[in-house]
């Protein structure tokens, strides 16, 4: 294990990747292993753990284990989609701003300032109030929150790379700007740009899960760890597993991502500090 995978040698990297693999397996393979349908009523509501239902049943009498196995996909999927969209938007704007050295720069800086004037969750809630609840609003909203910070980093990295010989050579060969950006610039800025992808992904999970918990995301009966917590927490004294199991899954997932991100950042000699404002990770 040399070079890129060096981070796996550190304890936090190894533990982080281990945890992450387990959670991803549960989330994506779990649905095939679930003993019951996530929406089927299999017994009395809120009965405790038994052989039939190892984690008991929820407030409607559905199997907690099956809902747990089905409930990871949407949390991780939505967070992944939001992070990917944020990078797509952020990279595009950052590349254009950095390469063309245009007026986009001050506009970007001010946009980040404005985003910083909001608690990120507040921004998403306002958006949901206006447009209604949907997966699209969640994904796009989170991407809008993350994109300005990404584009600032991309812009700085692009400006540094744009003056290098290989870029000038490509320009001299007569390549068009899109080709120059994609073939020469992008491969050379990926490392600094992607170093805190873990931070942004955790942030996406946090905020997607929080919105779902607040009842402003996915609609029941869809099974989702955050939704499970919010629908069962009133009855926590009757079957505590119905709340603690999904809560533990979310906690393990975000801790795994952060441990991995921390290890990767350290192996690249960078610092990794999850932001407390839980939001716009600025350059």
């Amino acid at each position, binding site marked *: 294990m040399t070079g890129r995978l060096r981070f796996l040698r550190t304890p936090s990297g190894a533990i982080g990747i281990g945890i992450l693999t387990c959670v991803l397996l549960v989330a994506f393979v779990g649905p095939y292993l679930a003993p019951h349908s996530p929406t089927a009523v299999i017994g009395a509501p809120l009965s405790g753990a038994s052989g039939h239902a190892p984690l008991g049943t929820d407030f409607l009498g559905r199997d907690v284990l099956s809902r747990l196995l089905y409930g990871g996909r949407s949390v991780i999927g939505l967070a992944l989609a939001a992070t990917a969209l944020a990078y797509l938007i952020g990279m595009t704007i950052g590349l254009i701003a950095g390469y063309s050295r245009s007026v986009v720069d001050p506009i970007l800086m001010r946009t980040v300032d404005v985003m910083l004037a909001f608690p990120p969750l507040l921004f998403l*809630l306002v958006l949901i109030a206006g447009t209604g609840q949907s997966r699209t609003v969640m994904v796009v909203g989170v991407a809008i929150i993350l994109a300005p910070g990404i584009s600032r980093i991309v812009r700085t990295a692009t400006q540094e790379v744009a003056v290098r010989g290989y870029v000038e050579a490509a320009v001299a060969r007569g390549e068009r700007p899109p080709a120059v950006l994609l073939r020469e610039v992008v491969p050379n800025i990926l490392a600094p740009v992607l170093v805190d992808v873990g931070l942004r992904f955790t942030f996406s999970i946090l905020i997607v899960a929080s919105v779902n918990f607040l009842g402003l995301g996915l609609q029941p009966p869809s099974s989702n760890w955050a939704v499970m917590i919010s629908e069962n927490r009133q009855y926590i004294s009757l079957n505590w597993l119905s709340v603690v199991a999904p809560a533990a899954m979310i906690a393990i997932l975000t801790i795994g991502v952060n441990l991995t991100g*921390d290890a990767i950042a350290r192996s690249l000699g960078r610092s990794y500090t999850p932001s407390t404002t839980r939001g716009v990770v600025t350059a």
Partner: protein
Amino acid sequence: MTALAERRAIERRSVSPVVGFLGRRLLGALAALLAASVLIFAAVQVLPGNAASAVLGRDATPQAIQILSKQMGLDRPAVTRYFDWLGGFVHGDLGVSSVALAQGQHTTVSSLISSPLKNSAILAGLAALLMIPLSLGLGALAAIRAGKPTDHVISIGSLVSISAPEFVTGSLLVALFFVGLHWLPPVAIVPPGADPLATPKELILPVVTLLFASLAAGIRMVRAGMYEALQTEYVQAARLNGLAEKRVLIRYALRNALAPSVQVLAQNLQYLVGGVIVVETVFAYPGIGSQLVSAVQNRDLTAVQSIAMLIAVVYVLINVLADLIVMLLIPKLREPA
């Protein structure tokens, strides 16, 4: 630059760099807030089409929508409505709840949020009061014990606690302290008009949940600053002079580690402003955050708009205040760059 121009520049700056800085910072904050207000207004009122039908829901008759549109003033152009709202907001008029209007009542948003606002201030204030000494203490402790088990426990613990969303931490705390140990109540319901401080036991879990997420970054920052300060020559010199270790740590190291930490502590205060949104909902605490969430659920658009703006104002003011404190703490920043 000629000598004269240089002297003028120095004179101009030396009038009062702090006032100049504060002025620029306030102007910037004002601009950001203006942009934020446009954004909030656009998101709530312009994006989806008719706000009145959003308030009334899917089954509303066209007549009902028309009547409510008129009551909400939606027949006027968006720009006029924006300036009316903003003008009212600046004068303390937060508008009339759209949901109440739909039910034929005239409830002002201000009357809806006056008591929740106080409750939230108490909750966030308590968390802030505990957060600052705790992050200084634990951060300094981790730095003093750098590389030892105490340091590892604090560092890993802070990474873990910052990782989990508030509603997860809150739910796990409820499972432990209510279901498991029967020590603390699972909710913090405060009757309207009552003082939350009258039932302090109910406040413990919400405050601890807020602390979990906000302490971590503070601890990490104080640790880094303190660790650096402990390696400096002035700390060595103080030790070699035979000063008591306690005095060296507090007077020499911690004091110098403090300045960079202020920014992070301020970010944490800002976080508290947003963090109450989820934490209040978890514990059914009647604050501004849970009020906002229920306004979003009911699609009470006027309330959402005004509460969101109010939170943004507090958020930005904390930021300005933090910059000012940093400036006063670090003399170097007061000199022109």
